[in-house]
């Protein structure tokens, strides 16, 4: 479904963000990227929808190699959830969700903010699924809480009915309890539709709980690729070692059990 053929990225300022990464992610897999800040997680994510072009190597989605010519059509199949939600603050919840389907709407309809019935219904259904109520529809996004904003963000991402969903640290600005709810929502929505998810995270405990597969990066290199069980067995120290931005709870994480998380929540 989603393949990275030995992709590397060197930014103009000389930073080597990724080097020679090989990955093959099958349809419907929930993949979590771990790694400290600057490990190359975001660069890898942004390569999927062409926000970052690889210096060498190739990204392939559904058998099609991503290039300049098919960039627009490929972007329509890739949804995205952001760390800062990236919603338009003064626009209503409904409009923010609908804007997720903008590539499919004519300029006239987009300008008049009047979407086809199918899309309107899809937006309402998604908002109900992510746990918002009808009175939220006309509210401005800026009036929502962080967790609710991310729910809107997820609904917007699924408006495209994407094959691949990219989540760039979707819970980094939320508190632990809300983070867990959002991860549950993200996983359930993706599993229901068979969407492939690539999600970068800073919380190994969430990765262990939700991922089908964990991929760890360090200094732009792939250092771990396996199931959560394998990661717990291997220990996390290898991922975060010798790094200033090592997350505080990481040392205890290999021993975290779902029971302990329940107790936390």
């Amino acid at each position, binding site marked *: 479904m989603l393949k990275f053929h030995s992709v590397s990225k060197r930014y103009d300022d000389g930073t080597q963000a990724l080097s020679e990464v090989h990955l093959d992610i099958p349809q419907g897999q929930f993949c979590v990227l771990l790694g400290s800040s600057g490990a190359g997680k975001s660069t890898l994510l942004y390569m999927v929808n062409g926000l970052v072009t690889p210096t060498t190597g190739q990204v392939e989605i559904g058998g099609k190699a991503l290039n300049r010519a098919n960039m627009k059509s490929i972007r329509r199949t890739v949804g995205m959830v952001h760390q800062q939600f990236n919603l338009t603050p003064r626009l209503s919840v409904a409009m923010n969700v609908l804007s997720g389907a903008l590539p499919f709407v004519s*300029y006239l309809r987009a300008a008049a903010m009047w979407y086809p019935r199918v899309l309107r219904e899809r937006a309402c259904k998604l908002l109900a699924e992510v746990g918002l109520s009808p009175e939220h529809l006309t509210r401005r996004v800026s009036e929502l809480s962080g967790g609710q904003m991310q729910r809107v963000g997820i609904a917007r991402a699924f408006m495209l009915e994407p094959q691949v969903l990219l989540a760039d640290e979707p819970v980094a600005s939320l508190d632990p309890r809300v983070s867990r709810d959002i991860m549950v929502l993200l996983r359930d929505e993706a599993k229901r539709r068979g969407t492939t998810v690539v999600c970068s995270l800073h919380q190994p405990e969430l990765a262990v709980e939700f991922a089908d597969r964990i991929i760890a990066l360090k200094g732009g290199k792939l250092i771990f690729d396996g199931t959560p069980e394998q990661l717990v067995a291997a220990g996390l120290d290898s991922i975060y070692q010798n790094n200033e931005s090592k997350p505080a709870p990481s040392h205890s994480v290999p021993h975290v059990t779902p029971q302990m998380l329940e107790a936390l929540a």
Partner: protein
Amino acid sequence: MKPLSPPLPKDWQLTPPWTAKHLLIGIALLALLALTGSRLEMPRMITEIGEAIGYSVGLTEKSPVATGLARIGHSIFPIQIAEVTEISRIENFDRNHLPLFARIEIQETKTAHLNTDTLQMETGVEKKAVLVEPLGYLKIVLVKMVETLEIALWATVLSILLSIPLAYYAASNYSPNKLTYFLSRSSISLLRSVPELITALFLVLAFGFGPIAGVLALALHAAGFLGKFYAEDIENADRKPQQSLEAIGAGKLKTLWYGVLPQVMPQYVAYNLYILDRNVRMATVIGLVGAGGIGQELKGRFDMFHFGHVGTILVVIFITVLLLDQFSARTRKKLL
């Protein structure tokens, strides 16, 4: 105060936030002001204002400024609200159907004329029937004021329409290429750099006297202003919503509409209201060069030394601007 013991190391020292350089710059600026002030007769301004104040409280015996101002005040007040027209000059005058509140009066004017037989100046009293409309002139001024408001409104609408494409091409993150960016930026600067009054002067030559020249002159200048500010707001808008729309391939125009416009809307409303306000005030001025509106009437009356009429016009302008302030403050509150 006791010195610290042990004393702090030498590198821990606080200095004042200014240095000798700042003082020098301050002195240089003062010197520059003194120089330009003497070239602009600023000392004379201060002494004459002092004299005028002294005269008004009875300290100074004479002050040309105070007497001048008093003369202007006397000629403006009472302001002229009524309209007096000689009946003989009204076409198809019908004594039985007078306008509302109007009455006919006989006015006596002293005239002097040369007696051709005696070659002496003789004074006589001439009697004329005049039509007096008590609120007639006020009505004329109000009609002119409405025309002025219409000019301002149309100028504002046109300037908004003009500035939207200008702003799109002048926003560095939306302009398709450097050439369009450069062209629109320079046309914005050009529009802004020519004062309305000058544009109106030329446009009156092209379109003749009347509101067309006024509307265009105001619209062109305001389009430059709005284009610059719209573009800068587009550039400074939060990138995050735009990135998320670009990431799904929404296209530039749709991204602008959904990711930028809602963010910048409050500022845009504020700019537009400011432009409307400014256009109303400028529309009163550009009439001076014949571009329609109340200014044309003002200039005419001023040139004929009808200061009572000028007074009426000034009062109407003042009240209009006052009402407009209230209106824009309320609209802003409601829309934001």
